[in-house]
């Protein structure tokens, strides 16, 4: 550590020019190679996707207010839940954290000027846009009603045009995802600055790295799967479609070989954000650095061994089900390690309950529930009745939404001052976190109970058909629970709208952000807010990313300033475990 007090400017005199205002033409955005601008464009894009997916989600919740369905007929409902799922998974969650925060902060955290392949990075964004266009096309064709999983033979026999459009969209989005992952892996591998060994990287980078590995190894299989599915739908090649001698269960193997690891593409970056934020807000070095870092890699690799647990009742053979169940439990260990290490980080800290920290706590609560209910589903005998019911719906929303989306929100509140140089209203930020947390639990906790009672997923109504009504007591219970859920969804939506409003208001009326409002020790807090076009004026020197003792709150700056280190970091006890 060769940083001295005078070499660190804590933001007294910020340069007037930054990456946002250094050029203003549309072309300077559309053809930018700057990872920060690409990250911001991604942010705008995925927020639109989130809004769209969210509107469909509200439509679903409203529909289920009445047992006979309140708004739509069955066909329309099927299309809506399909679009909700497909948009949320392919357009929102998978690119959410890596493509925005990964793009924006990965090079900065490495002290680099850009990612390894800036043009590929831009290409990845435009592929995302084209993929989105295909999805819009699928919507315009009307009739994409296969569910986001595109199970054969249903997807191969009905509504060909939208299915082909959507699968081609998925194919293109897959490339976008591969390019992003590839860029990050190469950047982390080859562009770490002198002094930043593997075990001195911020944990966010570890999780992005692990995510990149999954994106590289799993996404191509999705590519070939949708390609073969498209060929099946158009030419009837007989690989997946039983009408032509194919095997629908084979399709499920193909699909889940990608889509299970994809779950970790969604959640790992979220875990990375939590590992990054928690020590900052607790003012304590992260506990068990090495274990958290390696558990990311372990999750990434073990995630490839468990895809068969989506198929326990899909007539997978008994032996395969048993093997996959056994392997499934192995994933719970590294996830547990992370949670326990986070807890240990809080111990004896000095916890700042900022908006970011509120979301982190919400994440820990929701992710714990999501993870623990995974045990019910991983256990073979209990999975059988729960499979394809609302229990599963609740479980994966707790993990994907309670995990990935909440972590995304935590990240956005944490890094917003850095990205746009404006502070937001702390009070309303915390209100939004509260509402999101309460609304989320109200929406999804009842769904666990719905699932155990037997409510199957993807039902447009739950009164049964003529002559075969579902028993009255059950319909009553379903109705009550669905209504709590729908009510909760409105609370949740309100929370999200407030969060968006807080952030947008900050852009307009927010106070100017200091360099380091939260006292983070990773490199992004040493550059200006917002960063200049080339990130750093001088190559920054690398220190311990979780060493906070040399920081002090400066009320004049409204942020933290860095003091000369009390003692050289190399001999400090607060060094990450890995460097020993």
């Amino acid at each position, binding site marked *: 550590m060769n940083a001295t007090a005078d070499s660190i400017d804590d933001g007294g005199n910020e340069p007037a020019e930054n990456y946002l205002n250094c050029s203003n033409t549309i072309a300077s955005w559309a053809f930018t190679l700057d990872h920060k601008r690409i990250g911001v464009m991604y942010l705008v894009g995925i927020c639109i996707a989130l809004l769209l997916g969210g509107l469909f989600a509200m439509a679903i919740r409203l529909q289920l207010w009445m047992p006979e369905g309140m708004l739509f007929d069955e*066909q329309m409902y099927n299309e809506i839940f399909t679009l909700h799922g497909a948009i949320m998974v392919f357009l929102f969650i998978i690119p959410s954290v890596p493509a925005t925060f990964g793009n924006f902060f990965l090079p900065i955290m490495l002290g680099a000027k850009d990612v390894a392949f800036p043009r590929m990075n831009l290409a990845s964004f435009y592929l995302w846009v084209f993929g989105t266009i295909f999805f819009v096309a699928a919507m315009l064709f009307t009739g994409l009603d296969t569910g986001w999983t595109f199970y054969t033979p*249903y997807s191969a026999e009905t509504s060909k045009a939208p299915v082909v459009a959507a699968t081609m969209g998925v194919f293109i989005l897959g490339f976008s995802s591969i390019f992003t992952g590839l860029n990050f892996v190469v950047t982390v591998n080859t562009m770490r600055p002198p002094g930043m060994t593997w075990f001195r990287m911020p944990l966010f980078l570890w999780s992005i790295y692990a995510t990149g590995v999954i994106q590289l190894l799993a996404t191509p299989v999705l590519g070939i799967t949708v390609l073969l599915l498209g060929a099946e739908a158009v030419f009837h090649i007989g690989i997946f479609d039983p009408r032509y001698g194919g095997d629908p269960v084979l399709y499920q193997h193909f699909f889940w070989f990608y889509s299970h690891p994809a779950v970790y593409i969604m959640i790992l970056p979220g875990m990375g954000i939590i590992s990054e934020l928690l020590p900052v807000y607790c003012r304590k070095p992260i506990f*068990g650095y090495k274990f958290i870092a390696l558990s990311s890699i372990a999750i990434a690799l073990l995630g490839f061994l468990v895809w068969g647990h989506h198929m326990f009742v899909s007539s997978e053979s008994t032996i395969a089900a048993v093997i996959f169940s056994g392997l499934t*439990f192995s994933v719970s260990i590294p996830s547990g390690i992370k949670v326990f290490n986070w807890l240990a980080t809080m111990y004896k800290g000095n*916890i700042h309950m900022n908006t970011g920290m509120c979301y982190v706590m919400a994440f820990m609560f929701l992710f714990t529930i999501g993870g623990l209910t995974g045990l019910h589903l991983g*256990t073979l005998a209990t999975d*059988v009745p729960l499979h394809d019911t609302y229990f599963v719906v609740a479980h994966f929303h707790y993990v994907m939404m309670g995990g990935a989306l909440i972590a995304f929100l935590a990240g956005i509140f944490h890094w917003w001052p850095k990205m746009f140089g404006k502070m937001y209203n702390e009070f309303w930020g915390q209100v939004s976190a509260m509402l999101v947390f309460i609304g989320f639990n109200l929406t999804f906790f009842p769904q666990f109970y719905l699932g155990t009672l*037997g409510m199957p997923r993807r*039902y447009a109504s739950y009164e049964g*058909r003529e002559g075969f009504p579902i028993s009255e007591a059950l319909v009553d219970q379903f109705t009550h629970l669905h209504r709590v859920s729908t009510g909760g969804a409105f609370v949740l939506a309100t929370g999200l709208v407030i969060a968006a409003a807080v952030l947008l208001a900050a852009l307009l009326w927010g106070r100017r952000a200091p360099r380091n409002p939260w006292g983070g020790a990773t490199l992004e807090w040493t550059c200006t807010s917002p960063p200049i076009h080339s990130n750093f004026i001088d190559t920054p020197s690398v220190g311990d990313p979780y060493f906070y003792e040399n920081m002090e709150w400066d009320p004049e700056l409204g942020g933290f300033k860095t003091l000369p280190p009390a003692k050289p970091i190399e001999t400090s006890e607060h060094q990450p475990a890995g460097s020993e």
Partner: protein
Amino acid sequence: MFANHLLPALINLPALPLAGFWFGEAASTGAQDVDQLFALINWMCLFFFVLIIGMMCVFLFKYMKRDGHKEEWSPSHSNMLEIVWSVIPTLLVALLFVLGFKGFIDMRTPPANAYDIGVTAYKWRFQFDYPNGAQDEELHAVVGQPVRLVQQSNDVLHSLYIPAFRTKMDVVPGRYTYQWFEATKAGTYDLFCAEYCGKDHSNMNSNVVIHETQAEFDAWLAKINTPPDNPIEWGEQLYTRKGCKQCHSTDGTARPGGGPSFQETYGKTHQLIGGGTVVGNENYILDSLRKPQSQIRTGYKGITMPAFPRSLVKDKEVDALIAFIKSLSPDYVPEVETVPEVETPEEEGTIQDEVATESAEEPEPEEEPEVESVEKTDEMPDEEPEESAKENGETP
């Protein structure tokens, strides 16, 4: 609305898990095992949840930023702790795996004395085939008798799910899948399709009726195996039972996303997609049932109509349906002669007769009978000696 529905639900909510009744009523031998395992996992989860979230809350309140509070030093890693919180959960999940595995093997191993009931799933119905040849869309069984369901699908993936028995298995086209249960309580239970299968997925439910005694069950079986004498009445029953009703009305209106009304079918000339016309006669109805994609009338999406092969609708039943559709036609006049004829086993003859009458009236008399005979020879293997009577009438 809030007072009516939300409030009671909210008040009830905490009581539900406390009551320990996560699942509904357990009515099979397997269900109790599943419930026990589920409860065990629940307790385990509750323990960890309280541990984690409890510690989180304690830390949150104890170490929350306030005046004079400062972070204190504590070790930043501890291999001992890491080992503890890796090994203990590993042991616990290993236990869960073993228990789940055992339960699963039981679920997948039907007893040797199981009673086989065939299941054919199609859009959007389950049809149950009983060993004596009876078919019904309700699943009936007897208390204490293990039942094995031999499942096949006529079109897409379905999944037969009986919450009360905690059992579920996908129904996959092109192969068999199996599940079994042994009911412990008489009663009527819900049965759902749990795998998304298209438009009416949410209406693909049925009932499971568990009879107290074998005699009761046998009586039901005998009853269901005897169709009504009047073909029109039988046709009307089939209209509901085979799922026609979901897409086809009988009052001349077109259901949204569905097919043409049955009232508009018989004795009219219809425009087809891709040009050409077809006359609504027996052949047309038979074709529409067996090969629905072959003649699609303008204004309808034929793709939604599944094919009904003979395993789903027997030829006799087709006759009944035709009789029913015919009776709906506005200019239907009950024919006194045909009614007794359909009651005999030789319904095929009836169709032939009718086609003959029909062809005399239609503009294309040449074509129709020919199509008919091709149809019949194609579809009918010779291995039905007991039904030879009907062959006489139509072998060229």
